[in-house]
């Protein structure tokens, strides 16, 4: 049962990644400041005894190892714990996670909808004017920072022409600007990938065979060539989705999007250990899960690695 072995391997891998990431995050955040002092920074009459009491209440007087194992034990029993300031971590994540996923998926959809047709067109008309323009635009897209594009889009569509909301998540229109921003950024890379992969499959012998059979160019390109190019495209998109979830932080800040990125940034700012540890763990698990899903989909589209 190679598939079972594969799944077990991946599961072990996921556990190791999560342990490593949470351990590192829990350790690093404790180096950056004491939440008890941060909490009481506004008031002037705080004694050392008050601070100790706060630390005891938050469980911070215990050793690091003890604190970490408590956190792990709670997670394993399904309890994400309490934020230092904002109540149940679970409730906070339940609100933030769907918005982040929604934004990530919407961005990928925008990028796929742009890069696949453009990439195919560029490959089929290799060396033509359209191919040149697509390649130059892609280079431009790769060269400027994503938050800058976000700000430009806000200026254009929320300030100059106030047709779309600039920030927050209040209606479905709110997602258009952030998703377009990330979508365009991703397209810059993806269009190149699609183009190269298509060029490679289009020059393969089985494509010539398909043409020699009398098939129309449409069938040759969209069935025979694209299906093969899709193998590497899907792999890449999957890995990209993982990176994307991590990379959403900045865009969420620019658009004040109530997602996991915003949540973890706030947690860092407030030294909210339980919240930060939980958000980071969930992001890590999600990235591993996406990679696993990609491997499984890969088997579906490539019969050569499909398990008999």
């Amino acid at each position, binding site marked *: 049962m190679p598939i079972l*072995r594969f799944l077990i391997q991946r599961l072990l891998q996921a556990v190791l990644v999560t342990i490593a990431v949470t351990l590192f995050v829990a350790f690093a955040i404790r180096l950056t400041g004491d939440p008890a002092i941060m909490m009481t920074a506004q008031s002037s009459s705080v004694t050392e005894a008050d601070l100790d009491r706060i630390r005891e209440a938050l469980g911070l007087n215990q050793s690091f190892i003890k604190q970490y194992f408590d956190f792990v034990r709670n997670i394993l029993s399904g309890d994400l714990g309490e934020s230092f300031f904002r109540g149940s971590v679970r409730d906070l994540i339940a609100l933030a996670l769907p918005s982040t996923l929604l934004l990530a998926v919407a961005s990928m959809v925008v990028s796929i909808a742009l890069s696949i047709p453009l990439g195919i067109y560029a490959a089929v008309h290799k060396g033509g004017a359209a191919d040149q323009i697509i390649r130059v635009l892609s280079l431009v897209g790769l060269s400027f920072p994503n938050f800058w594009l976000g700000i430009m889009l806000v200026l254009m569509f929320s300030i100059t022409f106030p047709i779309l909301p600039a920030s927050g998540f209040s209606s479905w229109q709110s997602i258009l600007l952030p998703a377009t921003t990330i979508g365009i950024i991703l397209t810059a890379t993806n269009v190149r990938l699609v183009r190269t992969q298509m060029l490679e499959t289009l020059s393969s012998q089985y494509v010539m065979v398909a043409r020699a059979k*009398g098939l129309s*160019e449409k069938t040759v390109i969209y069935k025979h060539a694209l299906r093969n190019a899709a193998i590497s495209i899907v792999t890449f998109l999957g890995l990209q989705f993982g990176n994307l979830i991590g990379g959403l932080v900045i865009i969420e800040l620019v658009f004040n999007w109530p997602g996991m990125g915003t949540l973890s940034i706030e947690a860092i700012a407030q030294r909210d250990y339980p919240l930060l540890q939980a958000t980071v763990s969930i992001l890590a698990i999600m990235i591993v899960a996406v990679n696993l899903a990609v491997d499984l989909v890969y088997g579906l*589209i490539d*019969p050569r690695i499909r398990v008999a």
Partner: protein
Amino acid sequence: MSQNDTISPLLSVKDLTVKFGEGPREVCAVDGISFDLHEKKTLAIVGESGSGKSISSLAMLGLLKFIGGRVSSGQLEFQSSVLGETVDLAQAPEQVLRKIRGNEISMIFQEPMTSLNPVFTIGSQMSETISLHQGLSKSEAQTRALEFLELVRLPNAKRLLTNYPHQLSGGMRQRVMIAMALCCEPKVLIADEPTTALDVTIQAQILHIIRDLQAELGTSVIFISHDMGVVSEMADDVLVMKASKFVETGTVHQVLGHPQQDYTKALLAAVPKIGSMTGTTAPKLFDIPGMAQATKPAQVKTTDTAREPVLEVENLTTRYDIRGGLMNRVTHRVHAAEKVSFEIYPGETLALVGESGSGKSTVGKTIQQLIEPASGAMRYRGKDIFSLPREDRKAFQKQTQYVFQDPYGSLNPRMTVGESLVEPAKVHGLISTKAEALDKAAELLEKVELPAEYANRYPHQFSGGQRQRLCIARALACDPSLIIADESVSALDVSVQAQVVNLLMGLQESQGLSYLFITHDMAVVERISHRVAVMYLGQIVEIGTRQQIFENPQHPYTKRLLAAVPKLMPGHRPTRVLLDGEIPSAMRAVDDPPRLVDLQQVSDGHFAAL
């Protein structure tokens, strides 16, 4: 040309000229070729690489535009029954061509491993063509696909429909390609080197199938090949091309039997003809017209077994482990070489022959110490190599040199030829100064009959044959006593191949070299070797002098291998006992070791497994 002149030809090509590129970079790939293809006949287009023969075939399907070429002048008149009129394939619009491609004119390509789309099943790839041209429903198309898979004698045709290409061997894939090309019963089948990438016994199988089906379906065939033996077996008429140009044409008897042009004569002279050395014992140089050295006989007539062998290999066993299961344990082993034993004497050539998967290259690589053997011994002039410490083994490595098949991949493109040539000598500390290196490079180039000033050039400036000479020169850098030539001439055009084989024989004579000549090509073996060892599934099944093996083969596999080689006898259609299935795999479960063959003496120095 032939008795068909009165009937108008099915396909008439007039003055076909194909060009690539524009303006100053324009290249003429086919220059004014004309021929007629008649019903139920086979026309062979023969030529070496770069002669434009494959380009001509793509022109007939109107596929040139996809690789950047175009028919710049000439007509390709085809009598189409689908359209009920004569169509000029050079001018016809894409929609018309699409009705003809795969339907009335279909094509089989050279490389069966990459001809089928890896992500679709055999059944869907076949029924796609059938549905397209015959308007059949999906299930009707599947039935027809099945019918044609059975026609090309594929076992388990029904299961094959749901198989993917990677589950099939090269020979099976080529049969699928034939079935796919024929499933709309085309009037013309273009076969572009359909057997070049296949083993010789599989080649014989495929040639039979094409011939049988041609007779059954009444198809005309354009057979493109560089192999004169194959052409002699398949063709009615022959057209010879050289460097994009027409050379000569005629019936197969005329062209192969009484060639008129010097090029055709030279081409035929360079073809090793199996059986041509019957009654002789020593290797013989190829007779290349216009080359003086062709008359010089080989120095070593027969192997002097009384002398101490250069190399003795005893019970050499090399296996590759295949891991699997939850614990990643070794579940299977590829028994690439099992108890292989032989000796190579000074100045002799031992040919190690076999088909893909026979383990012949594994033996060569184990001797060169590129792979660690599982067991066995190897003695170089009596000294046991595997028992030596690492540093001393390296000294032996200097004594054996390897020449690979691919002359393109085995020279570093960023080093000058001179640097590449002297590198082994540098590694082994034979030269140190720059002046020595220059002298050495010049000397090596001279040995392989290339000008000394080539030392400053880069590999891409050389042709395939010249590169293989360079690889041989590099192998000579350390004054080795044994050269392992692993399919070293297989990738070369036949005229170049003859020159390189002559060079190897000349070097053997002047330097007293021994060769382990690893190849699948029996005809070349007959020319070059003193003794022959035949390998099958990792074991030597027969070994003896060249004369013993070729004139009195004992093992059934040796016989089959010899019978499968196409002979240069125009019009001769051999009937062979065909290998029905595939060559079995040398991979076996761990607890199921292969049965060891028992070599028995047939006559003096001739052993065979019986």
